């Protein structure tokens, strides 16, 4: 427990040391959300309903959806892992009485907890400005599905990031992989636009992947566009993915450290 608290405290201190850099992330998010809102407002000027969405529902989709996605993101954690492998920094962890994967998980909680506070403030601003457009959840019971979905999504995203980071055991230049992953992730979550705008057959394929459960599915449940039966199915798919990814992380770490890692720079 003391180990965990020390890691958390160090990460919080680090983030607060570079406050401007930290605020920079949030300002970037602000423009991202704003640009989506502007486009939807422009489109809804000509049409009262787009693919079953009213303007209010779409604004809720963007603002509340982004809020959900802030809970599940780990803000480019793969880059940190990748850097630690390529610079040889990871060798320190091989000698320390703490598992690297556990360290990464605690560190990520430290990172997200700080980022989350600033994200919530930002999103609160959006909620206040666009209050009159926001749609209330169909019932409070939706959060019984949304909260576990968020938690599972957080760990799924984290495991994906760890896997992406571990690619650096095999290639020292992995920017392309990281960028591809981030872009695909953003697209598949439905953060660009509701993926229900696609034909049903494509939507069904997306539902098999875990990405949609951090943005699209929770907001669909919130808006009452998805049944509780589908939500249960979603949770089951997430659990399966979590298990698969956990095994993959363990295996990749084992193979990476034992067969590929050379401790560059040490």
């Amino acid at each position: 427990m003391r180990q965990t608290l020390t890691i958390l405290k160090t990460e919080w201190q680090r983030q607060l040391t570079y406050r401007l850099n930290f605020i920079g992330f949030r300002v970037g998010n602000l423009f991202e959300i704003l640009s989506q809102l502007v486009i939807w407002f422009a489109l809804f000027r000509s049409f009262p309903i787009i693919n079953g969405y009213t303007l209010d529902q779409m604004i809720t989709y963007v603002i509340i959806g982004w809020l959900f996605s802030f809970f599940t993101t780990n803000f480019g954690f793969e880059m940190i892992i990748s850097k630690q492998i390529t610079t040889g920094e990871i060798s320190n962890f091989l000698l320390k009485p703490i598992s690297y994967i556990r360290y990464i998980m605690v560190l990520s909680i430290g990172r997200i907890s700080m980022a989350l506070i600033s994200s919530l403030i930002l999103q609160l601003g959006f909620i206040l400005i666009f209050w009159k457009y926001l749609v209330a959840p169909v019932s409070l019971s939706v959060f019984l599905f949304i909260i576990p979905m968020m938690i599972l999504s957080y760990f799924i995203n984290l495991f994906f990031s760890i896997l992406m980071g571990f690619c650096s055991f095999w290639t020292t230049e992995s920017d392309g992989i990281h960028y591809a992953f981030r872009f695909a992730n953003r697209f598949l979550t439905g953060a660009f636009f509701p993926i229900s705008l696609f034909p049903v057959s494509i939507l069904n394929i997306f539902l098999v992947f875990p990405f949609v459960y951090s943005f699209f599915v929770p907001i669909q449940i919130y808006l009452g566009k998805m049944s509780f039966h589908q939500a249960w199915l979603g949770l089951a798919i997430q659990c399966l993915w979590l298990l698969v990814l956990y095994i993959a992380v363990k295996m990749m770490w084992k193979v990476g450290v034992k067969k590929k890692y050379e401790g560059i720079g040490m």
Partner: protein
Amino acid sequence: MIKKYLRIYKTFLANALSYEAQYRANMWLNIILNLIWISMLFVFIETFFRFTTTLGGWEKPEVYLLSLLWIFTVELAAVLFSGIFRLPIDVNEGNIDLLIVKPLNSLFLMSLRQIRFSSSYYLILEVPLLIWFVIHYDFIHSFSSLCLALLLFVCGLIIYYSVLLIINTLGFWFERFDNINDVWLTLHEMGQYPLHILPKFFKVLFFTFAPIAFTAYVPVSMLKEQLPTHLIWYTILFTGFLFLCAVSFWNFAIKKYSSASS
């Protein structure tokens, strides 16, 4: 003098090429990624236009051209001026000392030292597509409008460079300021949509303090419909003014700089 700088640039090019050749897996991945990105752009625009025929008065081919030109400019800037993004980190770690003590123009060295070939694959894929769009949808009304659009495109590139230089030069005063590039790049993404859809406040902002309108919107507007003469002159004058400001700011920062580590 120019010969010397060309020779140095050639060395930068050779270095960048040999770096790229070392990481062939990453290179192939970048090519695939660029293909996916272009496909996503098509999916994105096609999805929007399933529900509307115009976006802020712009038709589908015009929105395509706008988005393609926007990406082209951003990627071209990434190929040419990648070094600039590293400036805040270099200042923070004291690496900038190595640049300013060299018998060369420090701005040239800082801006052009790193050529990112990975972004050039995108250009190779996109140039034929851009040309096809311009010819197929008959965007060239006259030779003069094409020349003016090209001139405005160059102005847009210079403005983009100038903004990057100004914001990264702030790194001399603020520690760990590298995120500022993410902020600018995210704001800049709004430049791939027709600015007609924006409220007036944003339109004014994007033609002045956050000049994202010049990257693609102005050149494409020139091809779409003849731009009013005053807007063409404004773009040219604004480019000169901003570039001058950026260079002066850089010189001022270098004068005030006291090394971090050496």
